[in-house]
């Protein structure tokens, strides 16, 4: 639904975004991952229309004149008019989209309920906690029923409770709207995203679906815990031709197999043949964090 082609933006000598291509699909949650200073915020600002790129284009399917009409945006550090109440702010945001005061007001009430702020709607924003402000920020971004919700680091500044609240909210929202969010908190990204873009020094260095990513980066490594003699078991594994390496790791055995199929087969066969007193066998799963570190080091 949204396509970014060859977008470039420089600040002085540094290239903040370098020839970036992005394709946001409908009904998908897309994570933009990268270390601090990778250019994520700049890229998102270009997509929202706050910044103009020097080169490249952002095109959105549909017939609207101004793409801001169908985008909802939460900046990295949302700053509100602190003298307003939460409800007034959302109503004001709605009125800026051309809603009548009445419609905007009922929309505000609805969104306060969605984001769990119904009790704080009449309080001044100055008294809100960080998590409440983040949720109010999401609420104001939803006021126009956006087709694409852009969230810049929605969880990075929050404590674990706040993070969980926001992630749960995102899971709820992604049923109705496409979401594009940037983050460097990878555990959360893993929980909600379908597509992943990784960014480094202004360049998109990897794009994939989360499922493909995990498949491609899964290592054929198996973890075995045993009650029996661990040294003997290790030696038994070392004799096998499909085993590339065996590590003894504090009472655990890590078997690096040549590939996944042989490994699965071999591990079970050997455990059965040696009558090992195993307590746990598992294929080591790969987290987004491991992949991220690998991709960034490349």
């Amino acid at each position, binding site marked *: 639904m949204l396509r970014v082609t060859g977008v470039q933006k420089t600040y002085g000598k540094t290239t903040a975004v370098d020839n970036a291509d992005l394709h946001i699909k409908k009904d998908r949650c897309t994570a933009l991952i990268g270390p601090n200073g990778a250019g994520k915020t700049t890229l998102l600002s270009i997509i929202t229309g*706050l910044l103009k790129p020097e080169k490249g284009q952002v095109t959105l399917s549909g017939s609207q004149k101004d793409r801001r009409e169908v985008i909802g*945006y939460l900046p990295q550090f949302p*700053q509100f008019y602190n*003298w307003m109440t939460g409800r007034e702010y959302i109503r004001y*945001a709605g009125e*800026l*989209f*051309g809603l009548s005061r009445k419609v905007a007001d009922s929309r505000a009430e609805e969104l306060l309920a969605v984001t769990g702020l119904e009790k704080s709607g009449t309080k001044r924003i100055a008294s809100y906690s960080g998590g409440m402000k983040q949720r109010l920020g999401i609420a104001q971004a939803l006021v*126009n029923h956006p087709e694409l919700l852009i969230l810049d680091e929605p969880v990075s500044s929050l404590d674990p409770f706040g993070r969980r609240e926001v992630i749960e909210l995102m899971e709820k929202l992604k049923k109705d709207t496409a979401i594009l969010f940037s983050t460097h908190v990878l555990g959360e990204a893993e929980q909600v995203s379908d597509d992943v873009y990784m960014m480094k020094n202004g360049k998109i260095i990897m794009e994939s679906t989360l499922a493909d990513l995990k498949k491609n980066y899964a290592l054929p490594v198996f973890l075995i815990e045993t009650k029996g003699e661990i040294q003997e078991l290790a030696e038994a594994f070392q004799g096998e031709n499909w085993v590339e390496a065996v590590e003894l790791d504090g009472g655990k055995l890590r078997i690096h197999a040549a590939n996944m199929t042989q490994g699965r087969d071999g591990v079970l066969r050997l455990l059965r043949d040696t009558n090992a007193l195993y307590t746990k066998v598992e294929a080591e799963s790969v987290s987004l964090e491991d992949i991220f570190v690998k991709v960034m080091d490349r």
Partner: protein
Amino acid sequence: MKQFWVMYKKEWLEAFRNWKILWVPIVFMILGASQPLTVYYMDTILQTVGGLPEGTVFDIPLPEAEEILPAVQSQFNQIGLLILVLAFMGSTAGERQHGTHLMILSKPVSEANFILSKAAQAYSLSFMAYAGGIAAAVYYTVILFGSLEPVHVLKGASIYAVWLAFVISLLFFFSSFIKGYGGAAFLTLITALLVSLSASFLPERLIYSPGTLSAQSSSLYLTGSSSAGFLGALFFTLFLTAGLLTAACILFKKKKLA
């Protein structure tokens, strides 16, 4: 247009919540009232405060009623301008400094509406405060010094209001591309000072300068008639004011994120 009104109303609500709606007019009214009062009671004040040797005959002739308003105006030109600049210097600079504009401008909001709604509110509140100040000055002048010609007062006061509008547009112009509060306020006051100083030093050369308007206003207060170049100066100032606001919108659009 509808969006403009929504934003204009928001500016008023803000002025209401941070008491600007009260303190700016009150300061102007105090300024306006203090001039006729201090002139009239100068005698008494000097006697009460003391410092004059016993038996000094000290006879200050009371000025005519018409002469009070030009003096009030010079008060406005010094303290009044400073107050207005202080009151509105954060209007756009503050949003940019805090980043509150990001969530607003990521919505389909035109940059011109963003600037002009703020400028319109600044004009409204400034004129309200200025009218209050003039009203207070006229009230005490009439009570203490005698009657004034209403048409002269109206003319003189409205011409000076055009100068105020020009200075406010300077402030919005400078704060459209300067991020800090202080920088824009300082440049506005310096520019206003230079414009009015140059006009008073070279009255023949700069006959249409906005800086001549306060002298024109004084002459309207005193005699009811203006001096040469009046219409030219008036229209040139209005033109400059509109030009500065347009430039502010364009510059802000270019630099909104910086």
